[in-house]
Protein backbone atom coordinates (compact mmCIF):
# COMPACT_ATOMS: atom_id res chain seq x y z
CA UNK A 1 0.00 0.00 0.00
CA UNK A 2 2.85 2.47 0.57
CA UNK A 3 3.54 2.08 -3.17
CA UNK A 4 0.22 3.78 -3.87
CA UNK A 5 1.14 6.92 -1.97
CA UNK A 6 2.88 8.71 -4.86
CA UNK A 7 -0.13 7.99 -7.09
CA UNK A 8 -2.46 9.37 -4.47
CA UNK A 9 -0.46 12.55 -4.13
CA UNK A 10 -0.29 13.01 -7.87
CA UNK A 11 -4.02 12.70 -8.54
CA UNK A 12 -5.83 13.65 -5.33
CA UNK A 13 -6.56 17.17 -6.57
CA UNK A 14 -8.09 15.82 -9.78
CA UNK A 15 -10.88 13.97 -8.00
CA UNK A 16 -9.16 10.79 -6.92
CA UNK A 17 -9.47 8.97 -3.60
CA UNK A 18 -8.01 5.85 -2.04
CA UNK A 19 -10.26 4.02 0.40
CA UNK A 20 -8.80 1.08 2.34
CA UNK A 21 -10.98 -1.36 4.27
CA UNK A 22 -9.23 -3.37 6.96
CA UNK A 23 -10.14 -7.01 6.38
CA UNK A 24 -8.80 -8.31 9.63
CA UNK A 25 -10.47 -6.42 12.50
CA UNK A 26 -7.02 -5.50 13.74
CA UNK A 27 -7.37 -1.87 14.71
CA UNK A 28 -4.12 -1.72 16.63
CA UNK A 29 -2.03 -3.35 13.88
CA UNK A 30 -3.69 -1.23 11.22
CA UNK A 31 -3.16 2.07 13.04
CA UNK A 32 0.47 1.23 13.71
CA UNK A 33 1.10 0.44 10.06
CA UNK A 34 -0.73 3.54 8.85
CA UNK A 35 1.28 5.75 11.17
CA UNK A 36 4.63 4.10 10.45
CA UNK A 37 4.19 4.44 6.68
CA UNK A 38 2.49 7.81 6.99
CA UNK A 39 -0.42 6.86 4.75
CA UNK A 40 -2.92 9.62 3.94
CA UNK A 41 -5.79 7.45 2.58
CA UNK A 42 -9.31 7.00 3.92
CA UNK A 43 -9.19 4.03 6.26
CA UNK A 44 -12.32 2.11 7.21
CA UNK A 45 -13.11 -0.91 9.33
CA UNK A 46 -14.66 -4.04 7.88
CA UNK A 47 -17.80 -3.99 10.02
CA UNK A 48 -18.67 -6.32 12.89
CA UNK A 49 -18.11 -10.06 12.33
CA UNK A 50 -21.66 -10.75 11.19
CA UNK A 51 -21.87 -7.76 8.88
CA UNK A 52 -18.42 -7.74 7.32
CA UNK A 53 -18.68 -5.90 4.05
CA UNK A 54 -15.64 -7.61 2.54
CA UNK A 55 -17.11 -11.09 2.60
CA UNK A 56 -20.85 -10.51 2.83
CA UNK A 57 -21.18 -7.93 0.06
CA UNK A 58 -18.16 -8.57 -2.12
CA UNK A 59 -17.43 -12.22 -1.31
CA UNK A 60 -13.77 -11.40 -0.87
CA UNK A 61 -11.63 -14.13 0.65
CA UNK A 62 -8.21 -13.22 -0.72
CA UNK A 63 -6.38 -10.05 0.02
CA UNK A 64 -5.50 -7.55 -1.02
CA UNK A 65 -8.37 -7.14 -3.44
CA UNK A 66 -8.60 -3.85 -5.28
CA UNK A 67 -11.41 -2.28 -7.28
CA UNK A 68 -10.92 0.85 -9.31
CA UNK A 69 -14.23 2.65 -9.57
CA UNK A 70 -15.25 5.35 -12.01
CA UNK A 71 -17.01 8.61 -11.19
CA UNK A 72 -20.42 6.99 -11.62
CA UNK A 73 -19.64 4.26 -9.12
CA UNK A 74 -18.97 1.43 -11.56
CA UNK A 75 -16.19 -1.09 -10.97
CA UNK A 76 -14.04 -0.73 -14.07
CA UNK A 77 -10.87 -2.53 -12.99
CA UNK A 78 -10.15 -5.34 -10.60
CA UNK A 79 -6.93 -6.65 -9.07
CA UNK A 80 -6.61 -9.77 -7.02
CA UNK A 81 -3.39 -9.72 -5.02
CA UNK A 82 -0.66 -7.15 -5.36
CA UNK A 83 2.93 -7.35 -6.48
CA UNK A 84 5.45 -4.55 -6.67
CA UNK A 85 5.03 -3.17 -10.18
CA UNK A 86 1.22 -3.48 -10.19
CA UNK A 87 1.00 0.14 -9.12
CA UNK A 88 2.13 1.24 -12.59
CA UNK A 89 -0.76 -0.67 -14.15
CA UNK A 90 -3.14 0.84 -11.59
CA UNK A 91 -1.89 4.34 -12.38
CA UNK A 92 -2.63 3.79 -16.07
CA UNK A 93 -6.16 2.72 -15.19
CA UNK A 94 -6.72 5.68 -12.89
CA UNK A 95 -5.49 8.02 -15.63
CA UNK A 96 -7.98 6.56 -18.10
CA UNK A 97 -10.86 7.07 -15.68
CA UNK A 98 -9.81 10.60 -14.70
CA UNK A 99 -9.46 11.84 -18.24
CA UNK A 100 -12.93 10.77 -19.33
Amino acid at each position, binding site marked *: *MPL*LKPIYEK*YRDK*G*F*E*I*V*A*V*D*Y*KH*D*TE*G*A*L*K*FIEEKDLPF*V*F*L*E*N*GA*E*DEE*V*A*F*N*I*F*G*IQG*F*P*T*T*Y*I*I*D*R*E*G*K*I*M*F*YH*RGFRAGNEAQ*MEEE*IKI*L*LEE
Partner: protein
Amino acid sequence: MSRRVVTALALSALLVLSAATQDEEAYRDAYKKMYGDYRAAETQDAKLDVLRGFLKRHPDGQYTRNVVSYAVRLLAYQQDNIDGALEFVASVLEIVKAPKVRIQVMQVQADLYGKACRGDELQKLAMEMAKVRELDYLDRVIIARNANACELWDLALEHYDAAIAMSTREAVVADLPPDWQTEQRIQHSLRSRLGSSKASKGWALVNSGRVEEGLAVFREAERNSNFYYVGMPKYGNLYVYWGRALMELGDYDGAIEKFAPAGVMMGDEDSVMLLRGAYVAKNGSKAGFEQFRWDLRLKLAKPIEDFAVTDYQGRKVTFSSFKGKVVLLNFWYPT
Protein backbone atom coordinates in the same frame (compact mmCIF):
# COMPACT_ATOMS: atom_id res chain seq x y z
CA MET B 1 -22.10 -43.37 40.03
CA SER B 2 -20.69 -41.98 43.26
CA ARG B 3 -19.23 -38.55 43.34
CA ARG B 4 -15.82 -40.01 44.17
CA VAL B 5 -15.82 -42.18 41.08
CA VAL B 6 -16.86 -39.26 38.94
CA THR B 7 -14.08 -37.14 40.40
CA ALA B 8 -11.55 -39.90 39.85
CA LEU B 9 -12.70 -40.29 36.27
CA ALA B 10 -12.53 -36.56 35.66
CA LEU B 11 -9.07 -36.45 37.18
CA SER B 12 -7.75 -39.29 35.07
CA ALA B 13 -9.29 -37.72 32.00
CA LEU B 14 -7.50 -34.52 32.89
CA LEU B 15 -4.21 -36.38 33.29
CA VAL B 16 -4.63 -38.11 29.95
CA LEU B 17 -5.49 -34.75 28.41
CA SER B 18 -2.45 -32.99 29.79
CA ALA B 19 -0.21 -35.87 28.74
CA ALA B 20 -1.67 -35.61 25.25
CA THR B 21 -1.10 -31.87 25.21
CA GLN B 22 2.49 -32.36 26.27
CA ASP B 23 3.00 -34.93 23.55
CA GLU B 24 1.46 -32.59 21.05
CA GLU B 25 3.74 -29.80 22.13
CA ALA B 26 6.82 -32.00 21.87
CA TYR B 27 5.64 -33.11 18.43
CA ARG B 28 5.15 -29.53 17.30
CA ASP B 29 8.60 -28.60 18.56
CA ALA B 30 10.12 -31.57 16.75
CA TYR B 31 8.37 -30.48 13.58
CA LYS B 32 9.67 -26.93 13.93
CA LYS B 33 13.17 -28.19 14.51
CA MET B 34 12.91 -30.51 11.52
CA TYR B 35 11.76 -27.60 9.36
CA GLY B 36 14.76 -25.57 10.45
CA ASP B 37 17.10 -28.45 9.59
CA TYR B 38 15.33 -28.90 6.29
CA ARG B 39 15.80 -25.26 5.35
CA ALA B 40 19.43 -25.36 6.45
CA ALA B 41 20.35 -28.57 4.60
CA GLU B 42 22.35 -27.71 1.52
CA THR B 43 21.76 -30.56 -0.86
CA GLN B 44 18.55 -32.23 -1.99
CA ASP B 45 19.74 -35.53 -0.52
CA ALA B 46 20.44 -33.94 2.83
CA LYS B 47 16.99 -32.34 2.80
CA LEU B 48 15.36 -35.67 2.01
CA ASP B 49 17.29 -37.33 4.83
CA VAL B 50 15.92 -34.75 7.26
CA LEU B 51 12.37 -35.50 6.10
CA ARG B 52 12.89 -39.28 6.24
CA GLY B 53 14.36 -39.07 9.72
CA PHE B 54 11.40 -37.08 11.01
CA LEU B 55 8.86 -39.44 9.48
CA LYS B 56 10.62 -42.46 10.95
CA ARG B 57 10.37 -40.95 14.42
CA HIS B 58 6.81 -39.61 13.98
CA PRO B 59 5.00 -41.51 11.24
CA ASP B 60 1.44 -40.94 12.40
CA GLY B 61 1.09 -37.23 13.05
CA GLN B 62 -0.87 -34.31 11.72
CA TYR B 63 2.22 -32.98 9.92
CA THR B 64 2.99 -36.20 8.04
CA ARG B 65 1.18 -35.00 4.95
CA ASN B 66 3.12 -31.71 4.97
CA VAL B 67 6.44 -33.50 5.30
CA VAL B 68 5.57 -35.86 2.46
CA SER B 69 4.56 -32.85 0.38
CA TYR B 70 7.97 -31.23 0.92
CA ALA B 71 9.64 -34.36 -0.45
CA VAL B 72 7.23 -34.54 -3.36
CA ARG B 73 7.83 -30.91 -4.21
CA LEU B 74 11.58 -31.45 -4.21
CA LEU B 75 11.49 -34.62 -6.26
CA ALA B 76 8.53 -34.38 -8.59
CA TYR B 77 8.17 -30.65 -9.11
CA GLN B 78 11.73 -29.33 -8.89
CA GLN B 79 13.56 -32.31 -10.41
CA ASP B 80 10.77 -33.89 -12.43
CA ASN B 81 11.62 -37.18 -10.76
CA ILE B 82 8.16 -38.67 -10.38
CA ASP B 83 9.43 -42.20 -9.80
CA GLY B 84 11.58 -40.95 -6.97
CA ALA B 85 8.62 -39.13 -5.45
CA LEU B 86 6.40 -42.20 -5.75
CA GLU B 87 9.09 -44.33 -4.13
CA PHE B 88 9.29 -41.86 -1.27
CA VAL B 89 5.53 -41.96 -0.80
CA ALA B 90 5.49 -45.78 -0.90
CA SER B 91 8.18 -45.95 1.77
CA VAL B 92 6.12 -43.65 3.98
CA LEU B 93 3.02 -45.78 3.52
CA GLU B 94 5.00 -48.74 4.84
CA ILE B 95 5.40 -47.09 8.23
CA VAL B 96 2.21 -45.04 8.58
CA LYS B 97 -0.51 -46.90 10.48
CA ALA B 98 -3.20 -44.36 11.41
CA PRO B 99 -6.00 -44.53 8.80
CA LYS B 100 -6.51 -40.76 8.75
CA VAL B 101 -2.84 -40.16 8.01
CA ARG B 102 -2.62 -43.00 5.48
CA ILE B 103 -5.45 -41.45 3.52
CA GLN B 104 -3.73 -38.07 3.53
CA VAL B 105 -0.55 -39.60 2.15
CA MET B 106 -2.58 -41.45 -0.47
CA GLN B 107 -4.12 -38.15 -1.53
CA VAL B 108 -0.61 -36.92 -2.28
CA GLN B 109 0.02 -40.16 -4.17
CA ALA B 110 -3.13 -39.62 -6.23
CA ASP B 111 -1.90 -36.19 -7.29
CA LEU B 112 1.37 -37.76 -8.40
CA TYR B 113 -0.42 -40.38 -10.49
CA GLY B 114 -2.47 -37.58 -11.98
CA LYS B 115 0.61 -35.54 -12.79
CA ALA B 116 2.23 -38.54 -14.45
CA CYS B 117 -1.07 -39.67 -15.99
CA ARG B 118 -0.80 -43.21 -14.68
CA GLY B 119 -4.43 -44.14 -15.02
CA ASP B 120 -4.24 -47.81 -14.02
CA GLU B 121 -2.39 -46.98 -10.85
CA LEU B 122 -4.79 -44.18 -10.04
CA GLN B 123 -7.70 -46.57 -10.45
CA LYS B 124 -6.06 -49.12 -8.15
CA LEU B 125 -5.28 -46.42 -5.61
CA ALA B 126 -8.91 -45.28 -5.56
CA MET B 127 -9.87 -48.81 -4.54
CA GLU B 128 -7.13 -48.98 -1.92
CA MET B 129 -8.30 -45.68 -0.43
CA ALA B 130 -11.85 -46.99 -0.16
CA LYS B 131 -10.52 -49.88 1.92
CA VAL B 132 -8.92 -47.51 4.41
CA ARG B 133 -12.14 -45.65 5.10
CA GLU B 134 -15.38 -44.59 3.54
CA LEU B 135 -14.25 -41.97 1.05
CA ASP B 136 -15.20 -38.42 1.97
CA TYR B 137 -15.77 -35.38 -0.20
CA LEU B 138 -12.11 -34.38 -0.42
CA ASP B 139 -10.96 -37.94 -1.26
CA ARG B 140 -13.52 -38.12 -4.06
CA VAL B 141 -12.57 -34.76 -5.51
CA ILE B 142 -8.86 -35.57 -5.45
CA ILE B 143 -9.38 -38.88 -7.24
CA ALA B 144 -11.76 -37.28 -9.72
CA ARG B 145 -9.58 -34.29 -10.59
CA ASN B 146 -6.63 -36.55 -11.28
CA ALA B 147 -8.83 -38.83 -13.35
CA ASN B 148 -9.85 -35.75 -15.35
CA ALA B 149 -6.19 -34.81 -15.78
CA CYS B 150 -5.50 -38.32 -17.12
CA GLU B 151 -8.62 -38.25 -19.31
CA LEU B 152 -10.15 -41.17 -17.44
CA TRP B 153 -13.60 -39.70 -17.82
CA ASP B 154 -15.58 -42.63 -16.40
CA LEU B 155 -13.52 -42.75 -13.24
CA ALA B 156 -13.85 -38.97 -12.93
CA LEU B 157 -17.62 -39.11 -13.39
CA GLU B 158 -18.01 -41.85 -10.80
CA HIS B 159 -16.21 -39.82 -8.15
CA TYR B 160 -17.66 -36.41 -9.08
CA ASP B 161 -21.16 -37.88 -8.81
CA ALA B 162 -20.30 -39.23 -5.38
CA ALA B 163 -18.77 -35.88 -4.37
CA ILE B 164 -21.89 -34.04 -5.52
CA ALA B 165 -24.10 -36.46 -3.58
CA MET B 166 -21.97 -35.72 -0.51
CA SER B 167 -22.32 -31.97 -0.88
CA THR B 168 -24.96 -31.57 1.77
CA ARG B 169 -25.43 -28.99 4.46
CA GLU B 170 -24.64 -31.56 7.18
CA ALA B 171 -21.38 -32.57 5.49
CA VAL B 172 -20.30 -28.95 5.15
CA VAL B 173 -21.11 -28.15 8.77
CA ALA B 174 -19.10 -31.18 9.90
CA ASP B 175 -16.05 -29.93 7.96
CA LEU B 176 -16.15 -26.21 8.80
CA PRO B 177 -14.16 -24.94 11.79
CA PRO B 178 -16.48 -23.92 14.66
CA ASP B 179 -15.77 -20.20 14.33
CA TRP B 180 -16.81 -20.27 10.67
CA GLN B 181 -20.27 -21.65 11.22
CA THR B 182 -22.31 -18.63 10.21
CA GLU B 183 -25.18 -19.35 7.86
CA GLN B 184 -23.50 -17.25 5.18
CA ARG B 185 -20.23 -19.22 5.36
CA ILE B 186 -22.09 -22.54 5.38
CA GLN B 187 -24.05 -21.62 2.25
CA HIS B 188 -20.92 -20.28 0.59
CA SER B 189 -19.03 -23.48 1.29
CA LEU B 190 -21.91 -25.62 0.06
CA ARG B 191 -22.16 -23.66 -3.18
CA SER B 192 -18.42 -23.88 -3.70
CA ARG B 193 -18.55 -27.69 -3.43
CA LEU B 194 -21.49 -28.00 -5.79
CA GLY B 195 -20.23 -25.39 -8.23
CA SER B 196 -16.73 -26.76 -8.58
CA SER B 197 -17.70 -30.46 -8.68
CA LYS B 198 -20.38 -29.86 -11.27
CA ALA B 199 -18.08 -27.71 -13.40
CA SER B 200 -15.56 -30.56 -13.56
CA LYS B 201 -18.27 -33.16 -14.04
CA GLY B 202 -19.56 -31.18 -17.01
CA TRP B 203 -16.06 -31.16 -18.48
CA ALA B 204 -15.79 -34.95 -18.11
CA LEU B 205 -19.18 -35.37 -19.80
CA VAL B 206 -18.32 -33.09 -22.70
CA ASN B 207 -15.07 -34.96 -23.24
CA SER B 208 -16.75 -38.34 -23.20
CA GLY B 209 -18.94 -37.18 -26.04
CA ARG B 210 -22.02 -36.49 -23.90
CA VAL B 211 -22.01 -32.84 -24.92
CA GLU B 212 -25.64 -31.90 -24.28
CA GLU B 213 -25.56 -33.46 -20.83
CA GLY B 214 -22.31 -31.63 -20.15
CA LEU B 215 -23.78 -28.27 -21.11
CA ALA B 216 -26.78 -28.93 -18.87
CA VAL B 217 -24.45 -29.67 -15.95
CA PHE B 218 -22.52 -26.44 -16.67
CA ARG B 219 -25.81 -24.54 -16.38
CA GLU B 220 -26.50 -26.25 -13.06
CA ALA B 221 -22.98 -25.45 -11.86
CA GLU B 222 -23.55 -21.81 -12.75
CA ARG B 223 -26.68 -21.74 -10.59
CA ASN B 224 -24.79 -23.36 -7.70
CA SER B 225 -21.55 -21.34 -7.88
CA ASN B 226 -20.23 -18.49 -5.86
CA PHE B 227 -19.18 -15.58 -8.02
CA TYR B 228 -16.62 -12.87 -7.71
CA TYR B 229 -18.33 -9.50 -7.55
CA VAL B 230 -16.91 -8.71 -10.98
CA GLY B 231 -18.58 -11.68 -12.63
CA MET B 232 -16.59 -14.89 -12.81
CA PRO B 233 -17.37 -18.04 -10.84
CA LYS B 234 -15.02 -18.52 -7.95
CA TYR B 235 -14.03 -22.12 -8.35
CA GLY B 236 -13.60 -24.95 -10.74
CA ASN B 237 -12.76 -23.24 -14.00
CA LEU B 238 -16.43 -23.36 -14.93
CA TYR B 239 -16.33 -20.65 -17.60
CA VAL B 240 -13.04 -21.94 -19.01
CA TYR B 241 -14.48 -25.44 -19.52
CA TRP B 242 -17.79 -24.12 -20.75
CA GLY B 243 -16.22 -21.68 -23.17
CA ARG B 244 -13.91 -24.35 -24.56
CA ALA B 245 -16.86 -26.69 -25.08
CA LEU B 246 -18.71 -23.94 -26.96
CA MET B 247 -15.62 -23.24 -29.09
CA GLU B 248 -15.62 -26.91 -30.13
CA LEU B 249 -19.26 -26.53 -31.13
CA GLY B 250 -18.45 -23.41 -33.16
CA ASP B 251 -20.55 -21.20 -30.89
CA TYR B 252 -18.02 -18.35 -30.72
CA ASP B 253 -20.43 -15.76 -29.33
CA GLY B 254 -21.30 -18.16 -26.52
CA ALA B 255 -17.61 -18.77 -25.86
CA ILE B 256 -16.89 -15.03 -25.78
CA GLU B 257 -19.64 -14.58 -23.20
CA LYS B 258 -18.04 -17.20 -20.93
CA PHE B 259 -14.45 -16.00 -21.42
CA ALA B 260 -15.36 -12.31 -21.06
CA PRO B 261 -15.50 -11.74 -17.28
CA ALA B 262 -12.04 -13.18 -16.64
CA GLY B 263 -10.61 -11.95 -19.95
CA VAL B 264 -11.68 -8.41 -19.11
CA MET B 265 -11.58 -8.17 -15.32
CA MET B 266 -8.83 -10.61 -14.30
CA GLY B 267 -6.78 -9.59 -17.30
CA ASP B 268 -4.13 -12.26 -16.73
CA GLU B 269 -2.39 -13.66 -19.77
CA ASP B 270 -4.26 -16.98 -19.92
CA SER B 271 -7.70 -15.41 -19.56
CA VAL B 272 -7.00 -12.77 -22.19
CA MET B 273 -5.64 -15.44 -24.53
CA LEU B 274 -8.87 -17.46 -24.34
CA LEU B 275 -10.98 -14.37 -25.03
CA ARG B 276 -8.72 -13.32 -27.91
CA GLY B 277 -8.90 -16.86 -29.33
CA ALA B 278 -12.69 -16.75 -29.42
CA TYR B 279 -12.62 -13.25 -30.94
CA VAL B 280 -10.22 -14.38 -33.69
CA ALA B 281 -12.28 -17.50 -34.38
CA LYS B 282 -15.32 -15.30 -34.85
CA ASN B 283 -13.75 -12.46 -36.84
CA GLY B 284 -10.90 -14.16 -38.64
CA SER B 285 -8.29 -11.75 -37.27
CA LYS B 286 -7.31 -10.05 -34.05
CA ALA B 287 -7.73 -6.58 -35.51
CA GLY B 288 -9.96 -4.47 -33.27
CA PHE B 289 -9.58 -6.78 -30.28
CA GLU B 290 -8.47 -4.11 -27.83
CA GLN B 291 -11.43 -1.86 -28.69
CA PHE B 292 -13.72 -4.88 -28.42
CA ARG B 293 -12.30 -5.70 -24.99
CA TRP B 294 -12.81 -2.10 -23.84
CA ASP B 295 -16.43 -2.13 -25.01
CA LEU B 296 -16.93 -5.39 -23.13
CA ARG B 297 -15.52 -3.72 -20.03
CA LEU B 298 -18.09 -0.92 -20.30
CA LYS B 299 -20.79 -3.54 -20.61
CA LEU B 300 -19.59 -5.71 -17.71
CA ALA B 301 -18.67 -2.90 -15.29
CA LYS B 302 -21.01 -3.38 -12.39
CA PRO B 303 -22.20 -0.59 -10.08
CA ILE B 304 -20.68 -1.02 -6.67
CA GLU B 305 -23.17 -1.86 -3.96
CA ASP B 306 -23.27 0.82 -1.30
CA PHE B 307 -22.13 0.02 2.21
CA ALA B 308 -21.64 1.87 5.47
CA VAL B 309 -18.89 1.16 7.99
CA THR B 310 -16.95 3.21 10.52
CA ASP B 311 -13.49 4.70 10.37
CA TYR B 312 -11.01 4.22 13.19
CA GLN B 313 -12.39 7.28 14.94
CA GLY B 314 -15.82 5.62 15.04
CA ARG B 315 -17.40 7.91 12.44
CA LYS B 316 -19.90 6.32 10.09
CA VAL B 317 -18.82 6.51 6.45
CA THR B 318 -21.09 5.64 3.53
CA PHE B 319 -19.25 4.59 0.41
CA SER B 320 -21.60 6.49 -1.90
CA SER B 321 -20.29 9.73 -0.37
CA PHE B 322 -17.30 9.31 -2.71
CA LYS B 323 -19.49 9.37 -5.81
CA GLY B 324 -18.16 11.77 -8.41
CA LYS B 325 -14.58 10.75 -7.65
CA VAL B 326 -12.45 8.02 -9.13
CA VAL B 327 -11.87 5.66 -6.20
CA LEU B 328 -9.33 2.97 -5.63
CA LEU B 329 -11.05 0.71 -3.10
CA ASN B 330 -8.62 -1.64 -1.45
CA PHE B 331 -9.40 -4.49 0.95
CA TRP B 332 -6.22 -5.05 2.90
CA TYR B 333 -4.91 -7.16 5.73
CA PRO B 334 -2.82 -5.41 8.36
CA THR B 335 0.09 -7.68 9.23
